[in-house]
């Protein structure tokens, strides 16, 4: 991570760290309907067991040379159209980061890691 993981906006006054962007992105992603939750990798799950609540769960922000990419690892609900949900997450995350932090996001990559079936009723066969 360049610039100590920090970020210089166009005013050259405010620094926003990647971690802060990740929290904004994580909260924005959870707001999109069709998202069941964020997917943590093994280490994330471990941190949660140890009692660290992590708002930036399932989000990776990388800013390098003024280019910011956000990677979001989600679990979607059963029955949703993944391309549509993914697009909504991308737009929502991008808008929230740009509004709240004033940082221009170059790419939001969505990684659909799983599908959540809870809340789907059993059927007769």
């Amino acid at each position: 991570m360049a610039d100590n993981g920090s970020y210089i906006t166009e005013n050259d006054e405010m620094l926003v760290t990647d971690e802060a962007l990740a929290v904004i992105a994580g909260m924005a992603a959870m707001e999109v309907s069709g998202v069941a939750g964020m997917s943590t990798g093994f280490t994330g799950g471990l941190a949660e067991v140890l009692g660290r609540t992590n708002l930036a769960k399932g989000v990776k922000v990388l800013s390098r040379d003024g280019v910011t990419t956000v990677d979001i690892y989600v679990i979607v609900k059963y029955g949703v159209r993944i391309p549509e949900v993914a697009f909504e997450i991308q737009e929502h995350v991008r808008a929230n980061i740009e509004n709240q932090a004033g940082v221009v996001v170059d790419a939001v990559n969505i990684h659909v890691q799983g599908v959540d079936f809870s809340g789907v009723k059993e059927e007769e066969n």
Partner: protein
Amino acid sequence: MNFFFRVLTAIYAVIAAVLSALVMISPFSDKNLMKNFLDWADVTLYRSDKYNVVVFLLGLVLLLVNLFILFSGLRFKRVNKYICFKNDSGQVRVSANSVESIALGLARKSRSVREAKSKVRFKNETVEILMKLSVYPDTHVPNLSRLLQNQIKDAVESMTELHVSQVDINIEGVHAAPADKE
């Protein structure tokens, strides 16, 4: 895993077994035995040009086999674990795991299915799904398969907008335990 690879692994296992047996025996065996063997090896193998070549070739073959196994081990990891589409805002990657869980969720909803496993492969923008099921008795397997194949194909296609080229169903067992689900 192809046949050739299996043969290589078998050869390797044998070599490893012999070596480990030798190591296990060596502390208890007669010192002279080892010494005699080393002397014999010294005389026959290292003092004659003919055997030099043989020993060198043997080592070379073993080295090549070693490298082959090492690299094939690395290659196996590079299975397509996700499928990727791009749009203006970035990439969307759908993992094989998520398609697997769609298929699994559908299979488990069925009353006649006791256990289900699923495996997904992405091949040129299409999805291949393999389901391994064990079912309860009194299941009409052809009906169940047809139903599941259609359900899975429809669900995966509508959710991911990818083309499902095939849904294979393997019935791995019929379980005698009566269906506990009501």
